[in-house]
């Protein structure tokens, strides 16, 4: 566990007394940061009640992208749900298909071949890195840094190239299958991956420098919107936002799935709880993901070329209940399957981490100035496909 102590004095978010003293003789106004907003990064509305410059209340409105995913899943056979699961969180599609396949495999009671597990780990971590790079590009535009948008997306293209080499598609890859993965890796996959990680680790320092070297960007994030550990745990906030507040929990280490228990990595945890801590946790996670990818690729090589990567599975799942959890780039995602012996699910429930993270936007945004609201919301990394399902 890596814990970084707060060693620099920072100013605190405005307290209730200061809000009362600062109040200008204006009437409170509700501003709708509406469905079409350049900084909302997704289709949702955040209504903020503003007194002068300071936000006193907030209400998120979601549901613009609701399509009844879980009900539609009851109408399709099990393999047909995999491309649907891709489009749950389109920015991190590989993790949702992995989660879905894990849940059905648990309900069937089968164990996936080892090579497929390690390939899934590599695919998951590639997905995590490219999702975090998309987030970093968006954070840059929110803070006013337009160069990092282009640099971050350029780095992301190299990781999407790896996706293309693995399965032929950049995003919404439709790659894991119930019983393994769709196809084996190529002969030179390890060479491609090692080159990509080496290049990326050098390039990431340039990206970090872009934001950290400017005192303006740092002061826009430090000290804003603090949450305590108890608040975080009670509100159900998960993922890097939670690890920035001091909750030391990562599903890959504490509740391992796949073959994560054989991989050695650190989990970054910070205790300040402000926006800057949530930002730093995600950056450090990208470095750790590179490390995980390298170890998993070495294990794939050790298994050899002819190791099995896919099992044949029956089309009907026996009746029962099963659930699986997975560490999504945005938090803790979960799928709960109730099956009834036919070839279609009876009830398939998806827990999206952003659903609870966005419900926590009200305590996060209270007391913050209006101009800082996009920066605060950017740190949650909004992707509305999974929230509305």
């Amino acid at each position, binding site marked *: 566990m890596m814990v970084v102590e707060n060693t620099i004095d920072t100013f605190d978010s405005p307290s209730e007394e200061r809000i009362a003293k600062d109040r200008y003789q204006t009437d409170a106004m509700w501003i709708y940061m*509406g*469905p*079409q907003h*350049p900084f909302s*990064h*997704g*289709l949702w509305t955040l209504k903020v009640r503003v007194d002068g410059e300071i936000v006193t209340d907030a209400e998120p409105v979601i*549901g*613009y*992208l*609701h*399509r*009844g995913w879980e*009900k*539609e899943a009851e*109408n399709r056979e099990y393999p047909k749900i995999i*491309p*649907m699961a891709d*489009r749950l969180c*389109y*920015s991190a599609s590989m993790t949702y298909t992995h989660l879905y396949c894990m849940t059905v495999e648990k309900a069937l009671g089968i164990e996936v071949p080892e090579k497929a597990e390690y390939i899934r780990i590599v695919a998951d971590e590639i997905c995590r890195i490219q999702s975090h790079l*998309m987030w970093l*590009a968006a954070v840059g535009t929110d803070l006013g840094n337009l160069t990092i*948008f*282009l640099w971050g*997306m*350029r780095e*992301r*293209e190299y990781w999407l190239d790896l996706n293309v080499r693995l399965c032929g598609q*950049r*995003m*919404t890859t439709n790659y894991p299958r119930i019983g393994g993965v769709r196809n084996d890796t190529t002969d030179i996959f390890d060479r491609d991956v090692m080159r990509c990680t080496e290049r990326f680790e050098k390039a990431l320092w340039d990206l970090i420098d872009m934001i950290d070297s400017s005192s303006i960007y740092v002061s826009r994030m430090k000290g804003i919107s603090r949450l305590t550990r108890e608040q975080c745990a009670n509100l159900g906030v998960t993922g890097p936002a939670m690890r920035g507040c001091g909750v030391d929990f990562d599903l890959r280490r504490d509740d391992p799935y796949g073959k994560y228990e054989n991989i050695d990595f650190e989990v970054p945890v910070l205790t300040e709880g402000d926006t800057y801590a949530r930002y730093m946790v995600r950056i450090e996670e990208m470095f750790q993901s590179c490390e995980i990818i390298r170890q998993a690729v070495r294990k794939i090589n050790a298994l050899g070329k002819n190791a099995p990567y896919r099992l044949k599975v029956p089309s009907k799942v026996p009746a029962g209940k099963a659930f699986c959890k997975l560490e999504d780039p945005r938090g803790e995602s979960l799928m709960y399957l109730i099956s009834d012996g036919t070839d279609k699910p009876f009830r398939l429930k998806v827990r999206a981490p952003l659903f609870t993270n966005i419900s926590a936007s009200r305590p996060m945004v209270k007391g913050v100035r209006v101009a800082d609201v996009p920066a605060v919301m950017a740190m949650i990394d909004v992707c*509305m*496909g999974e929230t*509305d399902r």
Partner: protein
Amino acid sequence: MDMSLYPHAVAMSAEEFMDWSTLVINDLLSAGTKKTVDKLTGPVWTWAMKNSMHPLHWGLACCALEMAAASTTRHDAERLGIIYRSSPRQTDILLINGWIGKKVRPSIRRLYEQIPNPKWVVAMGECAISGGPWYDSYNCVQGVDQIVPVDLYIPGCPVKPDAMIDGFMLLQKKIGDYFNRGVFLED
């Protein structure tokens, strides 16, 4: 042409302005000036509109990530003049890139009305064309052309950035024909 009222055009009421401008237009039409003016300046307007298509910066769903990737260094949509604008008043194109829930329909219609003429609507991705994979959803509109009139359909799920740029080049051809269809000075 009675230009005596011209300096006071801003002081006219709406009805007076309509009457005055109808007189001006009828004069031009009868003299053949309108056709000449159209022929001379039409190509200039179309060249300007073709090479500066400004879509609205609005991401709905998966195709929005590919829309963002199209503006980055590898695919570089900006060499065609495509710059995303945040306010609908400053755009030409409404780009629908995702599935449409019932809650968002008034927003789409309002954004469409807010974009000033001339405008085009591009339906990007299967969900915007015809509902996509969500064919049996109780909350998904089966195609955005039930809400706004669409000029260009770009198929794909998700649309590769190359395909999106190819689609915009087709739209350029369509814009090139805009004034040959004879709409100028009437709107």
